[in-house]
């Protein structure tokens, strides 16, 4: 590629993955480039494919529930499933994930029970965060999955700090932090990159470049040709991969984890993908972007690509697809029904966890609330 052909700004063109240096393994037709092939077993491939389908189906179901007014909000990962699941798959059990807000696929993969996730969507009494956070904003310590945080970028420096603590304690763990292309404008991104470089922390900074930050396209977010370029300024190793290529994401993330684990410091990964749906259920993207662009990316569907690979290897049939979908559908239905029937959190619980121990002034405010008319029907 000649210099003139390198775009001066990110373009959101699906063919950007053909640029030099972008890691690609699984092609659209389901064939595999052996150079970076992470060499997954058949069982691993099938497991990941099922997980991808499950995330997609769950996403669609949650949007439907929101439209029906049964849940208040959903922020999904349509089109970004491979970037999210592939990176989560590459993490070792000891590693920690610091999420953005679209990575429920990663949380489920690492062990957040589906029922608990759906409970969070309803904010009921079994919600892991006890009805306090918005849907899709959960925490799962058992899965070594941090707390989904709304203010953009704040998780980046935290992930670097967590990794630094591990380094000082000589714990064998790496942190992976997810964020979007928009978040690369945040101060926390720049400082996080700088600190990760200076402290040489075992951190993987995973940028889901999905083309848009709500209505702001990548070319108005940065004047750099790529988001990975930003690594150069901070002395942070940076790579780009086809984010709709499950195997490329796995290979790239595994490399970054290995690098971090052996003490060679942080890596910035720019995964080229696309936000196929609106920003969240609160958004109609037709107001600010062209349908043709979306259609082009839909043809690069990350899940269909894995299916073609499985079919090439004769590991998957239409019948397998039908039975997988039926099983997931039943599982999701059951979880939704159970979540809907679960009571809301009791009023008094609102005062718990402000501090590790309930102080006197909150005891007073709680008791006052429980004496008042709002306590009726909500239990103490």
């Amino acid at each position, binding site marked *: 590629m000649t210099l003139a052909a390198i775009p001066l700004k990110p373009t959101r063109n699906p063919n950007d993955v053909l640029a030099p240096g972008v890691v690609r393994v699984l092609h659209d037709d389901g064939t595999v480039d052996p150079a970076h092939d992470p060499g997954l077993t058949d069982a691993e491939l099938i497991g990941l494919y099922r997980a991808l389908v499950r995330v997609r189906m769950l996403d669609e179901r949650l949007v439907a529930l929101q439209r029906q007014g049964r849940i208040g909000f959903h922020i999904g990962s349509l089109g970004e499933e491979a970037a999210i699941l592939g990176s989560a798959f590459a993490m070792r059990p000891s590693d920690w994930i610091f999420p953005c807000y679209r990575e429920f696929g990663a949380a489920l993969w690492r062990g957040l029970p589906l029922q608990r996730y759906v409970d969070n969507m309803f904010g*009921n009494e079994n919600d892991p965060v006890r009805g306090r*956070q918005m849907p899709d904003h959960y925490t799962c310590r058992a899965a070594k999955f941090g707390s989904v945080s709304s203010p953009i970028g704040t998780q980046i420096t935290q992930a670097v700090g967590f990794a630094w603590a591990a380094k000082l304690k000589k714990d064998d763990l790496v942190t992976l932090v997810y964020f979007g292309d*928009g978040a690369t*404008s945040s101060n926390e991104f720049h400082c996080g990159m700088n600190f990760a470089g200076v402290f040489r922390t075992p951190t993987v900074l995973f940028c889901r470049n999905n083309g848009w930050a709500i209505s702001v396209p990548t070319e108005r977010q940065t004047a750099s040709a790529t988001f990975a370029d930003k690594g150069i300024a901070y002395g942070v190793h940076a790579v780009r991969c086809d984010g709709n290529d499950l195997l490329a994401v796995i290979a790239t993330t595994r490399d970054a984890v290995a690098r971090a684990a052996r003490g060679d410091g942080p890596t910035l990964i720019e995964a080229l993908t696309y936000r196929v749906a609106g920003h969240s259920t609160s958004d109609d993207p037709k107001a600010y972007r062209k349908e043709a662009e979306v259609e082009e990316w839909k043809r690069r569907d990350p899940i269909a690509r894995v299916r073609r690979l499985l079919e090439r290897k004769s590991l998957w049939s239409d019948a397998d697809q039908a039975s997988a979908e039926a099983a997931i559908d039943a599982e999701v239905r059951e979880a939704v029904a159970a979540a809907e029937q679960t009571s809301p959190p009791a009023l008094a619980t609102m005062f718990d966890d402000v501090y590790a121990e309930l102080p006197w002034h909150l005891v007073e405010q709680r008791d006052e*609330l429980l004496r008042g008319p709002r306590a009726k029907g909500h239990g103490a």
Partner: protein
Amino acid sequence: MTQGVAPARKTTYREAVRAALREALQRDPRVLLMGEEVGAYGGSYACSLGLLEEFGPDRVRDTPLSESAFVGMGIGAAMGGLRPIVEIMTVNFSLLALDQLLNNAATLRHMSGGQVGVPLVVRMATGAGKQVAAQHSHSLENFYAHIPGLKVLAPATLEDARGMLWTALEDPDPVILFEHTMLYGLEGELAADAGPVPIDRAAVRRPGKDVTLVAYGGTVGKAMDAARALAEQRVDAEVIDLRTLRPLDDATLLASVAKTHRAVVVDEGWRTGGLAGEICARLAERAFYDLDAPLARVCTAEVPIPYAKHLEDAALPQVEGIVQAALGAVARHG
């Protein structure tokens, strides 16, 4: 203050904000609107819908995602001779720009010996009620009302949504406008030629003689509802809308309490260290001998605002709590 003489038209708070923005852009070529999602999207709360198309990207500017950067840019542009209106999606995200606002915008005139002023207007949404949980729902007006060098406004009516921006833009110093998220849908009538309004005094929204209810922003409507409920119980409440949170208009408060001898302060902020406490302190200092009952506060429970509807409702000041506090005050005799 321009009195509307043209016939009143049905409109909403959101449209009043939009009309004010549009007029500011039309009137003064130095005015520009900047922030996240203000252009192509038309604003997170649709306040700037159509303005990018009308005024172009140099005057209605979507910025990259960094609050401290676009507030700093706004301060620089204001110092450089423009009149930027910076929109921050919510007060919660303004914390990422607090250094620019507190240590710079608010202090530059003083620190520079009067050489550098910052005629910047910052608008932000505030408040709870939309089930968007802690990181989107807090009422942090008191943080800003604490800062010398800033003027802090809380338009609670269509007239103020329409007219405060104008006056704020004419001010030589930084002005922060808080728009409560639950007010955007507020419907009402507004004179077609509604114009600028003063930004240095509170307003009596309902006269009364038995108890003063002090409110601002999103709680003014609740205080008015409480006053109606109290009227049914033969308690005549006066409702004061603070309008300006810094500097506070003590005179209006003191005049009201001299008449009613009782006050309940309603504040969506947290109780400890909040604006309600400040108002009570002023009344205790300057109206002690007028008071016939202890001052009362109705504030938000001191927890991060929860998501679940019943929890959020329970955390916030509500009409029944205001009524109860007012009845408590009138039951006491001096």
